[in-house]
């Protein structure tokens, strides 16, 4: 994206955001597994699979767009 300035690509920051949020949400989902919150469809454990999805996507973005990776 930034040939002139050599700026870290925005996709890397997106990856960091997804990675951190995915971890927090997955951990929170696992922690409440045995006593889910009082919400509709709590039995589906949405935070677990949604957090896992974000974590994996974040990891892919962080690796693919890492500032240390050579083009």
């Amino acid at each position, binding site marked *: *994206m*930034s*040939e*002139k*300035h050599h*700026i*870290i690509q*925005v996709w890397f*920051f*997106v990856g*960091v*955001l*997804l990675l*951190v*949020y995915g971890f*927090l*949400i997955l*951990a*929170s*989902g696992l922690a*409440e597994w045995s006593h*889910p*919150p009082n*919400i*509709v*469809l*709590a039995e*589906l454990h*949405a*935070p677990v699979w*949604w*957090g896992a999805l*974000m974590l994996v996507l974040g990891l892919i973005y962080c690796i693919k767009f890492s500032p240390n990776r050579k083009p």
Partner: protein
Amino acid sequence: MIAMMASTAPTTLVHLSAVDLGIIAFYFALVLGIGFYLKRFANTGEDFFLAGREMTAWVAGLAFVSANLGSLELLGWAGSAYQYGILAAHWYWIGAIPAMVFLGIVMMPFYYISKTHSVPGYLQLRYGSATSALSAVTFAIMTILMSGVNMYAMAVVMKVVLGWNINFSIWVSSLTVGIYVASGGLFSAIFNEVLQFFLIWFGALLIPILGLIETGGWKGMVARIQQNFPGQDYTHAWSTLGRFQDNPMGMHWTGIVFGLGAVQAMGYWTTDFLVVQRVLSAKDIRSAKMAPIIGSYFKMAVPLIVILPGLLGLAVLPMHLVPASSLQPGQYSYNEVLPLMLARYCGPGLLGLGITALVAGFMAGMAGNVSAFATVWTYDIYRPFLRKTAPDQHYVSMGRWCTLIGLVVSIGTAYLAMGFASIMDYVQALFGFFIAPLFGTVLLGMLWKRVSRAAGFCGLLAGTLSSVTMFTLMKLDHRWVGIFALSPKAQGLAQDMYQALWACVTCVVVTVLVTLVTKPRPDEELKGLVYALTEVAQEEHTSFLHRPLFWGITALAALLVLQIIFW
């Protein structure tokens, strides 16, 4: 509307856990960190105001669509979907896609080749100072007002949803936006918009997924809506538009096609500098053409996270929401449907993500407005009228100070907004005053070389004045609604569409008439500004998969399919 929401909200909708607060805090830390990191790259005017003109088509395209995906829009349109049903999706489909494709294919080459910094900048080149100044001043006022309204709306939502103090929300959000935009300029604003895009999708997409699981799919949702609201059709986009009285919006298909699709949307997406500035940051003309077309595909999908939650609210919420104007203690307004759905399905963690998405949307809305304000003030008001010759560094400093001053003024307008229950309605009407006629002026200027300077100015002024006059008359005496909006049953949004249509027609007619009696500018002065005198690079030797035209036509075809599915 917003003040009403704040004053009568029953209790806070949700309570945040430690993990939710951690998610919100991390977002603030990340955007501030990115702002400080980008400061070193925003040294020249082109860096600060146009992000160095080095964004790829994807980044510019996502920023382009995100600039219009603020939380005000999310909450408002989800509420409109609850109120009007799937008719609200027209603002994302026919009210956006054709205009985005038109911007990419037809108009972008002129903006890009003329190397202008802004839309008023193009008007300066095409029509001269008077037209440019009229457009720049009105736009600067609009952006500051919108930034303040965003700020206030965020503070109110945080108070209603979380019980946060209004002053705390206003000052924390504006300080954060001020720091990162004054540091990195448009670089920061665009980076934040891309982050916001991902946040909004990940924060809101679970609502329709879980909602459809709960209702047993689309058919189950429709059946529940019919059970909850018998005799009303909320799930057909076109079949109820044959007569004004057949749909809750009081809308006719001519208002949607001509008022919204042909004028309002074209005006907003092709001449509102807030969105066009994102595309101007593209690294080359092909990226500039592709950016709005890429954005159009995402825009087409936004009803999934905005309109569908509103419809699901009709199906699953145990209470009936009411208009903000008739809100009683213990009731919820249409605008609260998205937070209510969020609280219904999301526990700790996911709730923090959803709230962060809303906060990010509000802050991106503020950032977009102040960065556009700084550019238009510096390049279209300060430089041509106050200080014509100064080093580039001086204008960059002016841009940084403008960002901060703009935010301080926005804080003032945010507090001002507290005093007006329906200020959003008036702000939207103000946009309607200037955007619809501006589209006529810019389009005629690009496509017809005969249009003179005087014609451009007179057309824009006449269109704006006619729009203000129509708005005032309809507010003063309801009989005028039947004349301008073609039916006394036309509601607010329908009135806006016809007002925009007639304002644009007035602008075009006056421009053509004045053109015929005034002297045109010489051809040499119009090279790169007008269709007949501009050489746009052709793409005969490019694979069709790399041609903007191919993807533009595909977007229009996909739009057509969606209309047939939801007819």
